[in-house]
């Protein structure tokens, strides 16, 4: 299988201006390299401020990297080339309630990426929207609804539909399950897994729930202060953690799981 996404020495440094002539560089991400195939899921865990969200933003093109390169299907992605990037790499955000425009109907929300990125006619666009809504398990009637009329689980499905509508190869999800109820969460996990198996999507998950990470991911990266401190196959890392940060994370979640007494 050819490598779908390859990242070489990607790093991000923010310039903090203490005084106009004195600049203090803050390293948010320090030389990350990895590769990802189709049908694969990569999970990134770490504490707050460890640079995991920065990596997600860099992949989706929301921020410019300070150095390093991103290769998609063997071709280098140029920073200014948002057209190809947004067709192949799409992003889902933590809170669907705030990432959907409340003044647009679901149909309009989903039509926007099609209008901007494809040459489809109005009729074809409607067809595509209906097909995508079906894929995420919603009825076609939802195009007339507005975001406030839907439950949080349905909103997250709409966010996923918006990501899927351009038939991307990679989906970057920044803590998609953090604010979800247990029953809707497992529905969404199932949906993600189904879509991966049918369409060969690759996922990059940024999360802090190790239980879900263990269930859905193939590769696991543990971040701490902008560096990868541990990486490898999920099962191996979780069963035999080496670094202090990994152990601390595992400890905190196992503590939560263990029964009292």
């Amino acid at each position, binding site marked *: 299988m050819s490598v779908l996404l390859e990242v070489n020495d990607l790093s991000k440094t923010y310039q903090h201006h203490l005084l106009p002539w004195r600049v203090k560089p803050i390293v948010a991400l320090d030389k990350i390299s990895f590769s990802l195939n189709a049908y694969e899921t990569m999970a990134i865990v770490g*504490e*707050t401020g460890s640079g995991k969200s920065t990596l997600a933003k860099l992949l989706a093109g929301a921020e410019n990297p300070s150095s390093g390169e991103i290769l998609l299907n063997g071709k280098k992605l140029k920073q200014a080339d948002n057209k190809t990037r947004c067709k192949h790499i799409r992003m889902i955000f*933590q809170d669907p309630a705030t990432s959907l425009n409340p003044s647009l109907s679901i149909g309009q929300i989903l039509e926007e990426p099609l209008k901007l990125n494809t040459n489809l006619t109005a009729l074809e666009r409607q067809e595509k929207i209906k097909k995508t809504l079906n894929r995420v398990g919603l009825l076609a009637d939802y195009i007339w609804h507005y975001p406030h009329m839907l*439950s*949080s*689980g*349905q909103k997250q499905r709409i966010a996923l539909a918006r990501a899927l509508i351009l038939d991307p190869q990679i989906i970057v999800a920044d803590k998609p399950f*953090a*604010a979800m*109820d*247990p*029953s*809707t*969460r*497992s*529905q969404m*996990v*199932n949906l993600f*897994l189904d879509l991966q198996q049918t369409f060969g999507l690759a996922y990059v998950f940024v999360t*802090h*729930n*190790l*239980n*879900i990470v*263990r*269930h*859905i991911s193939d590769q696991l990266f543990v971040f701490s202060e902008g560096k990868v401190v541990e990486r490898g196959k*999920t*099962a191996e890392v*979780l069963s035999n953690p080496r670094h202090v940060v990994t152990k*601390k*994370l*595992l400890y*905190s*979640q*196992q*503590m*939560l*799981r*263990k*029964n*009292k*007494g």
Partner: protein
Amino acid sequence: MLLDVRNLTVTLKTENLEVNAIDKMSLSMREGSIHGLVGETGSGKSLFARALTATLSDKWEVKADRMFWQGQDLLRLSPEQRGQIIHRDIAMIFQEPGRCLDPTATVGEQLSEVIPEAECVSSFWQRKKEIYGKVSNLLKKVGIKHYQKCYESYPHELSEGLCQKVMIAMAIARRPKLLVADEPTDAMESTTKIQILRLLQKLNESKNMSVLLITHDLDSVTQYADEMTILYSGQSVESGSVRDLLKHPFHPYTEILFNTIPRLGDDLKPKSRLTTLQGSTPPLQHLPIGCRLGPRCPRAQKECVITPKSVKLKGHVFSCHYPINLER
């Protein structure tokens, strides 16, 4: 019994609609226990907390067979008397602590306001010093090491976990008998989450302060709570001690809820499908009649259009026509 609520009904009244957002819910709490109140979004968990502390607006009507707080029926008291009791005995903390604190005042100023004046013994000239001592004591109690620095900072300078600790410090200033924690660890990192929950547990043990832990995070409830009540769109589903509920759930919803969490220790095959409950929680305008779980329940039958009575069995209280795990 510290708190005993029987058949609480909270009704939302609008011009053309009357909805029972909470429908005949019961809850009882022992003194000095941690009680978990679990439910999905919109199941009325936070509404219960607000009905208990009488902070609902006029649009809502609260009715109950009884709402006993240490033997006194709160609903039969005048609003002033009720307010006094709540003010004295019950404190509350919320989710997203960063937003609950005043962004324009330092933590020290905000905490000084909370210190009850009746407790200060020194003269006017030493008042400031005494309050400072009390505030730093509170901050020490909730496990903030650099309390001096925390005293002088503004809320935005502190991390989410520290903010929640400050909120807890405010809540315990009057030594309440009950702390209502409304999703205190929602969307927090796991390491911070465990700190907050441990702190609550420690306060519960050392100060004999009861905690009502309202959350949708089953993991933390099963770990820290002694007893739990499960809510589903305003109806209480099952309640009892956490261990019993984990071992022998009687209500199908309880079982499904516990099965939906993939666990680190389980031998679940990676990428296999998880058990789920079909559909989504009904919105307030379209509540089904009878047992509200009915349309989604795998065991639902004809009788489920009648609201089931709650049954007490082996220390559990559950309400279902067709309970599971019962040998006849």
